[in-house]
């Protein structure tokens, strides 16, 4: 009986001590976390919400699928603009949205090492950097890629962040355009707690669905059947309309 009473006393005490240690210094959530690109998909707005220690800085990134890209400068030769030698960019994002609680160059300076430690070195090239810092021989190429992404609404360099400095909550809405590449997106928040950088990550999937998914699957995995079907379908449409509109 005494032991039973002691347990009742000790266990809540232990829980009371342990819970504050296991509560994360920041949380992040994205809604919806799965975006389906069906036949009538025309982009979608996602909402990112979260909380961190009140008053702490925050850098929020939504990073689309990263892949190798080749970018070529255009040069004028004999009066004609032609492609020159291409440069390969490693881990170039297909989409990037950036939001911050304060000027981005301050945040980048603050979380520079954290971004590198998180394996996002290439993403640094797309963020505003203080002059002379962290420039690499490839920086100009990445900046050119950033311009091309921005032209296609695939780089959102300054998304508005709703930020409550008292409670530490934040939220933002990000528009994924219809040309956003399908795949797994990282949603990453960089903040601080107890003077230490904190990184929290969640994911967002943009997937093709319904007829769009089935057609893509057929085109990639059964190209002969897909090609013959596409041709026969075209000939059928042409024949039916040709005959219908030319009846005497």
């Amino acid at each position: 009986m005494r032991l039973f009473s002691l347990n009742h006393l000790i266990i809540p005490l232990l829980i009371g001590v342990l819970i504050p240690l296991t509560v994360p210094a920041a949380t992040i959530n994205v809604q919806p976390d799965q975006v389906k690109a069906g036949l009538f998909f025309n982009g979608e707005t996602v909402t990112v919400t979260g909380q961190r220690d009140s008053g702490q800085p925050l850098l929020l990134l939504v990073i689309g699928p990263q892949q190798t890209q080749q970018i070529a400068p255009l040069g004028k030769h004999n009066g004609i603009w032609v492609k020159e030698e291409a440069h390969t960019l490693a881990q170039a994002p297909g989409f990037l949205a950036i939001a911050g609680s304060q000027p981005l160059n301050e945040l980048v300076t603050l979380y520079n090492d954290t971004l590198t430690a998180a394996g996002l070195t290439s993403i640094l090239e797309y963020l505003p950097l203080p002059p002379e810092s962290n420039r690499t021989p490839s920086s100009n190429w990445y900046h050119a890629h950033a311009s091309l992404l921005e032209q296609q609404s695939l780089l959102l360099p300054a998304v508005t962040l709703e930020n409550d400095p008292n409670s530490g909550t934040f939220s933002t809405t990000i528009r994924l355009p219809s040309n956003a590449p399908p795949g797994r997106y990282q949603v990453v928040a960089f903040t601080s707690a107890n003077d230490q950088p904190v990184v929290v990550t969640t994911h967002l999937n943009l997937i093709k669905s319904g007829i769009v998914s089935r057609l893509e699957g057929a085109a990639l995995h059964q190209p002969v059947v897909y090609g013959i079907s596409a041709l026969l379908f075209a000939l059928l449409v042409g024949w039916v309309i040709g005959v219908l509109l030319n009846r005497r």
Partner: protein
Amino acid sequence: MIHIYLPIAEVSVNLFLLLAIGGGVGFLSGLFGVGGGFLLTPLLIFIGIPPAIAVGSEANQLAAASLSGVIAHWRGGRVDLRMGIMLLVGGLIGSTLGVSLFAWLRASGQIDLVIKLLYVVLLGLIGLMMMVESIRANLKSRRSEASPEAPTDTNTWRQQLPWQMHFPTSEVTISAFLPIGLGILVGILAAVMGIGGGFIMVPAMIYVLGMPTAIVVGTSLFQILFVASNVTLQQAIRVQTVDVVLALLLMLGSVLGVQIGARAGAKLRGEELRFLLAFIVLIVCGWMIYNLTSRPDFLFTLVSASGH
């Protein structure tokens, strides 16, 4: 505004805009017997379709539009089947040679430039020649009140070549080497430039083979039907760049447009048709020269992406 998401192009486009583009290009196909690829490719790229998907998908819609157009011209007795088969034989040989030439040019790294320059040179030459000839023919017909079809000569170098063959529908007797040779030349250019070759074939059939303009249009569409079918299969199987949703929307517009174009063409005189085609060809040529020589908005371009 209804937007449709294209499964292979991975971009969403306005439904009515695609129908209108298909209809406009189909109208030109029916009117002039050209595939319209030289016009459709830049238009699709302009609205955000990746270039490779634009070329592959327009070949698929062209198969539908050209079959629809061939039926319209066939019913009117305006398809020279015998000539079409000769051109096709040459086209198959030429396109096979052209694929090898394309691979060689691509390996050299300047295929884009070669294609653009070929476009400019060919469009410029053909457009100017047709423009001058059609104006002369128009003036001549006004003076004589006659209806002069393009070349009406009966005893020229065409009759001196071996393997003479009579083509009753076109009412010409020429060496079979001419349509086969023309087919080879257009087949090579079609493979290298990724087009049906109608804008080269139509004037060549008028001026080199001496065919009447009314027969040329239907016969050209007959040949384009086979070229477009072949390109559709090659693009779908080899590089997976045929987007059937894009092709379907374009073909719905174009099969209707081609019918209207074919009927409008039947009401126009040969020299009027040639003048209009020359005018459009020269406008496209001028636009391409402007694109090649004017400073682009961005001095960088993406070359390729790994993976799909």
